[in-house]
């Protein structure tokens, strides 16, 4: 299961193996019904709302569309023809202002503008501060297409539970009771508080009584649109399209129409002083109810709206930093490219107040480098020898021997040395195994090989160079033993009689010839 960041900002959980790339939203045809193919992307349930509002941008898989069609058909409060046509969810039909009055009085928030007071008259100014869904209905009017951000906010607002269920729940249980209660309260006590006005209708209830479920569903959906979108951007534009409505006052525009309480946020500035506390109270009391019914999480659009509102209050010149920099450049000229005399004086060592302690410098070594090198062998570089990166040595190929040649070597040596040769053994240098012998034994060969190994290891610590081509040992009885390293994989051991041959002759001729002859026995890549 892999988390993808969707195009609309919400995470998309893909239940694929992580290798298959999910299809992009833009690549999908909303009207496509691919029954055979298995889509790899599954969107959250709340994407149904997105589809219901904007079918043209459907991001559902065919299976989700089928599921939405199955659940959305009979259960939705909206007309079936508008939601699911032929199994495909279509955009919500455009709603005009005539449909709006019956919508969503039960859960409106005080953050939304209240245009209803323009319809109902100044007597209900206090109630007008409470939100109605008129504005929300206007925002979804067909005259002006709703921007993408609005759709996104709708999706964010609705919880993971199916929108159908939400609408159904509001329609069946909550909304009718509240509507009835609110209607009674309105008739009995017209000067009710803003809190009570949140849960009662403001306009005639005849249409609402005819289709309470449908009206409540629309109001809920539209109310969410209004609430999450915020009053800053969508509300004014939508209100301008409806000439008969009371304008929503935002920001500076509130100065033009002071009698219209636009939003609770602007209430301390725009609204009369006496109404402000009630408006804020209404907002505070209405907020938890709203979140309990339809709010899924705090909306990002709320922050955007507030940020936009703050930017509207700023002077553009204060924001334009480039203009300020240009003005600074015009007044001060170019950037300084050279230090001033004052800066040089302050930074120099001859500063009258600042003290400059001389750094401790030990100077050059007392002993010259040659002396140091003589004492330490390699000089200072020798200390880093152990840290030097060791080169990787390629493994040697296996030894390949020409056994016929090896026999010829034994014969040639016997002929050249003559009677002085007591024994001759050729052994494998790594293991000490005997390869060819003329008078030698396996035990003797192994022991000489062991002695060679110990000698090599000891010389490493004797501050002497490595063992070279041979070493010889004078034995009692006038004999001499010579161990020859003829090849990296081959060695030879000779025992000579010094009464038969001179030591100089052995050193000059015998040992070199034996080395060459034994080395010639190795063939192939091992040579």
């Amino acid at each position: 299961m892999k988390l993808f960041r969707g195009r609309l900002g919400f995470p998309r959980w893909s239940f694929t193996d992580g290798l298959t790339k999910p299809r992009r939203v833009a690549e999908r045809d909303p009207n496509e019904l691919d029954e055979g193919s298995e889509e790899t992307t599954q969107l959250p349930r709340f994407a149904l709302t997105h589809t219901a509002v904007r079918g043209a941008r459907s991001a559902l898989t065919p299976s989700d569309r089928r599921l939405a069609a199955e659940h959305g058909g009979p259960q939705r409060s909206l007309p079936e023809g508008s939601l699911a046509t032929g199994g495909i969810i279509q955009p919500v039909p455009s709603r005009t202002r005539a449909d709006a009055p019956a919508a969503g009085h039960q859960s409106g928030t005080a953050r939304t503008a209240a245009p209803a007071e323009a319809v109902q008259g100044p007597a209900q100014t206090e109630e007008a501060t409470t939100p109605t869904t008129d504005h929300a209905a206007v925002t979804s009017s067909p005259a002006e297409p709703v921007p993408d951000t609005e759709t996104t906010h709708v999706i964010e607002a609705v919880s993971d539970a199916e929108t159908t269920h939400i609408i159904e729940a509001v329609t069946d249980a909550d909304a009718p009771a509240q509507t009835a209660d609110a209607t009674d309260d309105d008739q009995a006590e017209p000067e009710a508080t803003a809190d009570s006005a949140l849960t009662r209708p403001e306009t005639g209830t005849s249409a609402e009584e005819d289709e309470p479920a449908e009206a409540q569903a629309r109001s809920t959906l539209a109310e969410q649109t209004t609430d999450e979108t915020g009053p800053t951007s969508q509300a004014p534009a939508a209100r301008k399209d409806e000439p008969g409505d009371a304008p929503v006052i935002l920001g500076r525009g509130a100065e033009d129409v002071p009698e219209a309480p636009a939003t609770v946020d602007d209430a301390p500035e725009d609204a009369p002083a006496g109404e402000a506390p009630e408006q804020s109270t209404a907002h505070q009391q209405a907020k938890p109810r709203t979140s309990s019914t339809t709010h899924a999480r705090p909306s990002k659009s709320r922050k955007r709206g507030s940020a936009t509102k703050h930017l509207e209050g700023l002077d553009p010149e204060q924001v334009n930093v480039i203009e300020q920099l240009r003005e600074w450049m015009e007044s001060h000229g170019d950037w300084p490219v050279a230090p001033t005399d004052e800066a040089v004086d302050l930074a120099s060592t001859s500063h009258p107040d600042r003290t400059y302690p001389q750094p401790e410098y030990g100077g050059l070594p007392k002993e010259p480098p040659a002396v140091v090198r003589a004492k330490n062998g390699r000089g200072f570089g020798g200390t880093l020898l152990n840290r030097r990166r060791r080169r990787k040595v390629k493994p040697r190929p296996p030894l390949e021997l020409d056994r016929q040649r090896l026999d010829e070597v034994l014969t040639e040596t016997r002929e050249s040395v003559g009677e002085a040769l007591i024994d001759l053994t050729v052994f494998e240098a790594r293991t000490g195994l005997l390869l060819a012998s003329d008078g030698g034994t396996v035990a003797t060969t192994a022991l000489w090989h062991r002695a060679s190994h110990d000698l090599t290891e000891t010389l490493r610590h004797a501050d002497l160079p490595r063992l070279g081509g041979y070493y010889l040992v004078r034995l009692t009885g006038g004999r001499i033993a010579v161990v020859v390293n003829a090849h990296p994989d081959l060695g030879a051991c000779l025992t000579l009689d010094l009464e038969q041959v001179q030591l100089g002759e052995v050193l000059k001729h015998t040992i070199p010839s034996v080395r060459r002859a034994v080395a010639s026995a190795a063939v192939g890549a091992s040579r």
Partner: protein
Amino acid sequence: MIAAIEQALAEVREQLDQALVAADVWSTRTGLGYASYESSPATGPMLNTVVQDLRETLAASGSGELDDLVVLDLYGKTAVVLVCPPGLGAVLVLDKHIDLASVLTTTVPELAERLRTAQAEA
């Protein structure tokens, strides 16, 4: 004895001159050096260990016993190890280009004789 050993080394230096790279004389019992010339303190004890190992190896193989001379062909040098019974050992590190046969026939026997004399006088 030490004076005699030093005297013997001085004569070898005169004979070999530039061909002598280093020299060392040590006790075969303890491995400690009596005299040295341009040699490392580890050279004598290590070569003494080499000689002891060779003795053990020859004794195990049945090939005989170590007499008095071991010649090691090293990279660029030649080391001649003398065993002077009863308790001295010496090494002469020679240059590669020297005539090793003449050294082994003339210089090395003379040094061995002087060392034996030094031990006998002590």
